[in-house]
């Protein structure tokens, strides 16, 4: 099952490699990992998407909690939560395809943020499956490159992951 583990960690050199090293050393899988400092500059927030049965996820959360750089964590799969991923897609365009791609992008609430005579860069956020759906809707040959942030996520309601 897919789990989103959200981690508050010390914003220190080496913290990321401790987490990444733990996953590779113990053979856990990382589907995506995203990290950046929070409003409290001493803390970073990391979102890891992983897969595993309940026993594996239990071990992952316990082992993460043992790391001294990990201050607090939560498995968002247990809670109602919102999830967003950012994607940039660079698409080859010509005079005949431009309109069609723009319309498609609008349907998916995408934004065209760069235009040249033969390309668009489209910015899109959403749940990961929405981004997948947009990619599927495009002609594969027209895609020059894509880059995705990996999902970030937080729980719904007034409670949250904080100190």
């Amino acid at each position, binding site marked *: 099952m897919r789990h989103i583990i959200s981690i508050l960690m010390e914003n220190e*050199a*080496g913290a990321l490699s401790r987490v990444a090293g733990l996953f590779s050393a113990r053979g856990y899988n990382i589907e995506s990992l995203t990290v950046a400092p929070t409003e409290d500059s001493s803390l970073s927030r990391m979102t890891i998407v992983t897969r595993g049965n309940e026993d594996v996820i*239990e071990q992952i959360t316990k082992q993460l909690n043992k790391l*001294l750089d990990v*201050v607090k964590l939560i498995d968002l799969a247990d809670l109602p939560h919102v999830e967003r991923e950012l994607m940039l897609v660079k698409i080859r365009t010509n005079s005949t395809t431009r309109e069609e791609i723009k319309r498609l992008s609008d349907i998916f609430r995408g934004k065209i943020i760069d235009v040249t005579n033969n390309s668009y860069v489209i910015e899109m956020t959403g749940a990961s499956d929405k981004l997948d759906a947009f990619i599927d809707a495009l002609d594969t040959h027209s895609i020059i490159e894509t880059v995705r942030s990996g999902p970030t996520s937080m729980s719904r309601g007034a409670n949250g992951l904080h100190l």
Partner: protein
Amino acid sequence: MISQCKQLLNKISRIAYEEVRVELSGGEIVVQCLKDEGVEFIFGYPGGAVLHLYDAIFHQDDVKHILVRHEQAATHAADAYARATGKPGVVLVTSGPGATNAVTGIATAYLDSIPMVVISGQVPTAVIGSDAFQEVDMVGITRPCVKHNFLVKDVKDIAETMKKAFYVATTGRPGPVVVDIPKDITDPYIKIPYSYPDAVVMRSYEPNPQADPKSIQQAVDVLLAAKRPVIYSGGGVVLGNASQELRKFTQLLGFPITQTLMGLGAYPATDKQSIGMLGMHGTYESNLAMHESDVIIAIGVRFDDRVTGKLSEFCPNATIIHIDIDPASISKTVKVDIAIVGDVQPVLTDMIALIKAHKQKNSAADLKSWWVRIEQWRSVNCLEFDRTSPEIKPQAVVEEVYRVTKGDAYITSDVGQHQMYAAQFYPFDKPRRWINSGGLGTMGFGLPAAIGVKLAHPDAEVACITGEASIQMCIQELATAAQYNTPIKIINLNNRYMGMVRQWQEFNYESRYSQSYMDTLPDFVKLAEAYGHVGIRVERPEDVKPALEKAFAMKDRTVFLDIMTDRTENVYPMIETGKGHQEMTLRVAPGTPIDRELA
């Protein structure tokens, strides 16, 4: 007048000294931190990146430096010092190869949860990352085998980092901590005011989880309703100094107790409730009791694969209670029914009180018939070996070591058959007496470990039970033993094979002894003498006892006993890999009839 002036001047300078905080260089700060931690010994080896530190060591006598001959030995000696005393072991090595040589010993301590602080030198901060001479990313290399590690980037951070290192290493589930210090941080010309913090707070570290009283109560209820219970205790009881509580708990309940390799000594092995070690080379009675039990209480253990055997057949009918300070140990390999996350000593104390107050008691009839069953298994006498052999049996040597030392020695070991013989045939009645690398299985551990133990307990008998393969992995430490006058007894069970490798090859590879034979062994007697010690070779069974008596009578000498043992002896009983506790292979020896129906 002059003398009055002098007095006045002295007074003024004393006041000035007391009021202005002492200014120290980074190197001096590290040494002062060690003093403030009450560190007695530091095991190390100098080199370029730690020269400032070694100069600071030169100027004081409080922390005694033990110069080893290889950094691996520094970590093993410090590790064994910690195992024998409960105090953290401290190591100092230089950057690059000094640091990488220490890694084996750091991993050894990590796998057995031993408190240790390793200070490694690093190249100056300005050249970190440039592949400088003797540069290695120590923080990166040790990350998977330390409890935590630090790179100190500012002289102002040294004191707090050192405090954190000792705090982390010694609290919760203990473990090794590395502090990597670049050379410029210890610069003798950069001095700052020094003060050592009394305590440190780390918001992400909560080492003492409070056990849930409800699960303790639940566990007691289950224990007192058990019909075929077993206490399965391990290294956590030793580390948590809960030996007294374990004794009270076990004797109060009257249950059989089996101990892991790491736990030996926490409960007296010579007591009738002790049914010996469990696992791959554990006793028949322990493993079958585990298999047939209805309730297991696992105390400070981690369900290691050498203990459990085939997981799907582990204790098939038992309700499993597990006490451990590390939540990640709970249900890691074996799913437990009642988890108690907490320090073993207070948890056992609470349980003892609850058991005493509880209305229910175990059915005496059930416990009696359980003990009858266990005594049947015990009567198989699974450890027995051929006592009439014309060859020296390694088991007989260990039994004799036990007799000569009156069961009161500190025994270190290396890894292999001799380690198992020591565990099986030297019944430990006290904790911290049995010093071995159980988790990582590090050959080369025994000799430096014996030196570390002897430094900690100079008046105690310390023996290293080893083999001719293992001993050669850190043999250079015979020089350290001579330098610091640590009289230890090395019992070399010399079978001219890597015994355990040979045994597995006999069992699983049709006796194809691939590379497990040693055909160019040194003359260990001459080697010991070359290092300034006493060497004795023993070749006949009747010479074992007098040789041991002679060796242990030489209180102020290190003695190397090179004992030629039976080349083909194997460790029994054995659970072969992938088999369950109920599938033990027993020795079929002449004169020891084994009723296999019992199994």
